[in-house]
């Protein structure tokens, strides 16, 4: 067996997981909100990119931009609908509403795009990089680069900019943020727009790796959930590390044991980590 190949696969997969999860990480960290429609928003992002590429014939970067714009809009609409529940931090309502929203998106996408799988080819996904008997596509390399870039920009934005500070104020104590003059509603709306745009970007990058289906949302949201919780809820670096770790684990487990049981094994690891480190990987020792 080619260990280096498994390592490369794991790194690519890990960055893909991390990139897909980033919107939800911010969502949880900032708004203390969940979005069980995340997977279907991923699906929508993938199909928007595919449609812009194959249907409109747009160049790949422009197709990504279209998908992100639609994603941000969907995020805004979703949050606008849920605003009342968000302001009251009514988590149960939000869970059900986002779950329902996901199914609505799924149904709408199936009506428009049909239920058959599509292949999303980009200029990068059809070209390979080989060294020895190890290979990856340029798309895979781009996933790693984009994921790292998004995490670095996000971390810098949250830590170093005024917008980042206002977002962290709302994350810690939205009520106190109101007294500091912060418009909490618009922060929530902005965070959801970011979630929508980020997951669409992830879909545009990661989507070409596999055939895309309008029914693929649920699998995505499950793996995202593992990454976010494993990383320590709301921790940006934690979810990057968790994504990477999960990717490597999945690649090696799939190669050494069996790909059929990787999701089950990933959850077993998640439970073990949560027992040992209840705050996730990034939790500080207390």
């Amino acid at each position, binding site marked *: 067996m080619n260990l280096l190949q498994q390592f490369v696969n794991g790194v690519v997969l890990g960055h893909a997981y991390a990139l897909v999860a980033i919107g939800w990480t911010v969502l949880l960290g900032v708004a203390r909100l969940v979005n069980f429609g995340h997977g279907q928003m991923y699906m929508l992002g993938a199909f928007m990119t595919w449609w812009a590429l194959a249907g409109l014939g747009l160049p790949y970067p422009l197709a990504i931009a279209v998908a992100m714009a639609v994603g941000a809009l969907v995020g805004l609409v979703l949050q606008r609908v849920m605003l009342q529940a968000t302001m009251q931090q009514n988590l149960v309502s939000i869970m059900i509403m986002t779950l329902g929203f996901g199914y609505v998106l799924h149904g709408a996408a199936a009506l428009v795009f049909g239920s058959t799988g599509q292949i999303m080819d980009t200029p990068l996904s059809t070209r390979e990089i080989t060294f020895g008997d190890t290979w990856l596509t340029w798309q895979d390399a781009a996933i790693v680069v984009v994921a790292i870039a998004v995490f670095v920009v996000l971390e810098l934005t949250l830590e170093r900019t*005024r917008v980042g500070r206002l977002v962290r104020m709302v994350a*810690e104590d939205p009520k*106190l943020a109101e*007294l*500091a003059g912060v418009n909490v509603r618009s922060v929530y709306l902005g965070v959801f727009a970011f979630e929508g745009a980020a997951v669409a970007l992830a879909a545009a990058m990661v989507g070409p790796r596999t055939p895309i289906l309008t029914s693929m949302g649920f699998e995505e949201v499950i793996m995202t959930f593992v990454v976010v919780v494993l990383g320590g809820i709301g921790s940006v670096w934690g979810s990057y590390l968790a994504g990477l770790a999960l990717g490597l684990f999945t690649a090696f487990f799939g190669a050494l044991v069996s790909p059929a049981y990787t999701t089950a094994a990933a959850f077993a690891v998640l439970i073990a980590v949560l027992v040992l480190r209840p705050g996730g990987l990034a939790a500080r020792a207390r």
Partner: protein
Amino acid sequence: MSGARDATAHGAAAGARAGATGSSGRTVLEATGLSVAYGGNTALALERLEVREGEVVGVVGANGAGKSTLVNAIAGWSRGTPRVAGAVRLDGRELSSLPAHLRARAGLLLVPEGKLVFGEMTVDENLTLPGGVHVAPGRRYYDRESVFELFPRLRERRGHLGAQLSGGERQMLGIGRALMLGPRVLMLDEPSIGLAPRLVSTVLRTMRTLASDGLSVLLVEQNVRAAIEVVDRLVLLERGRVVLEGPAAEMRDDPRIAQAYLGTGHET
């Protein structure tokens, strides 16, 4: 609760007000017909409260008298979900329909009781202004540097997290953050809680200094002994109503104030 007693109290309040010699500045903050209810329970029923320019008004009363409820209602803010009715005017402008963050930007600043700083952010980061604040004439907007001049202790601690600060430092930080938004009225809810006596007087004396610059201060205090030293006027709340009101000098000798002083609260 006795109606007769209330009537006497209002009579006394009116008399005291007529004899007031305190600040003669114009009215900055005026709250009228302010009522707050939690569920079916009325927590506050206030006829009228005003704070004039450069005036420090103390609100005192026992636990549960409605002191916090009063300043929260004026700020349009609460951690719970009360029903609030009534009018709040700042420099004659009606603010009742505005959400809390817009009242704050309009110059009505509250430093709340309890959690008043962002614990996971540094002192510097706590002193961050929201976007879209335009500077209005006639208001002083402190920048971070002048907050540090007012509270040198905060400069020393600027890299520390809010959660690492002492109670006194948190008060200073809460006040500093409010000052950056250009307050017309600064409302402090129990700033002395958990502070050493020396710190209490530091914080309260700072209020006096700010007031001499023209800022109006509404100070909620259980520590009447400390409050009465710095306020111009004192308002005594009982069961959500104003039962006594007058210049600090006159209130000092009132038996009802003496009662609150001694902490012999006659209610829950």
